């Protein structure tokens, strides 16, 4: 059973066309929600951590928000260089050795065309 679901799977935007990516989760006792960016042939690059409902984080054209059931990654006036796969991951409230483990969604592949 998937604990982290991302939608849409793929998104095509024209440069300047703002939109949002969704990440919904069903883990118990959320410790943190993480957003990553992954370029083709590279490892995921860490973007944000969100800890509690209502929290927001911003970086350039990206803003991440968190509710009790989902997170959104808002992209304002995107540029072609924002094209990448965006991954969401959650850390659940388990104890002991599994504490550091993340559960990843399958990602949203974003393409921004000029």
């Amino acid at each position, binding site marked *: 059973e998937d604990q982290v679901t991302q939608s849409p799977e793929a998104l095509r935007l024209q440069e300047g066309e703002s939109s949002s990516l969704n990440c919904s989760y069903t883990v118990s006792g959320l*410790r*943190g929600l*993480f957003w*990553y960016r992954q370029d083709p*042939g*590279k*490892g*995921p*690059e*860490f973007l944000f*951590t969100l*800890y509690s409902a209502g929290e927001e984080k911003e970086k350039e054209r990206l803003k991440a928000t968190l509710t009790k059931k989902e997170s959104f990654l808002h992209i304002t006036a995107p540029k072609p260089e924002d094209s990448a796969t965006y*991954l969401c*991951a959650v*850390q659940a409230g388990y104890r002991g*050795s*599994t*504490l*550091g*483990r*993340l559960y*990843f*969604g*399958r*990602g949203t592949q974003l393409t921004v065309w000029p």
Partner: protein
Amino acid sequence: DVKVTQSSRYLVKRTGEKVFLECVQDMDHENMFWYRQDPGLGLRLIYFSYDVKMKEKGDIPEGYSVSREKKERFSLILESASTNQTSMYLCASSPRGRRQPQHFGDGTRLSIL
């Protein structure tokens, strides 16, 4: 900045070979992880380690083993490579404790012929 280095970007091996993938991190992180990434399946956790000589199975450990003899180094071993292990392999590390992000290497694209 955290640096996670994987020994090879591309690797081609034959079925039945024993394959070693190496990962080194330079930030004194306690936790280290091995994932594989396949189109449509996302990142799947193979093994992880939260301390030297400690290891725990992830979601898909079959056909793999790991070794962590030093804190900075985490090795993934394919005991007898098979074609269904052709994939992108990603290593990550994180500090101990809650709410710590994992930092990834750039991956090893492994092809088993």
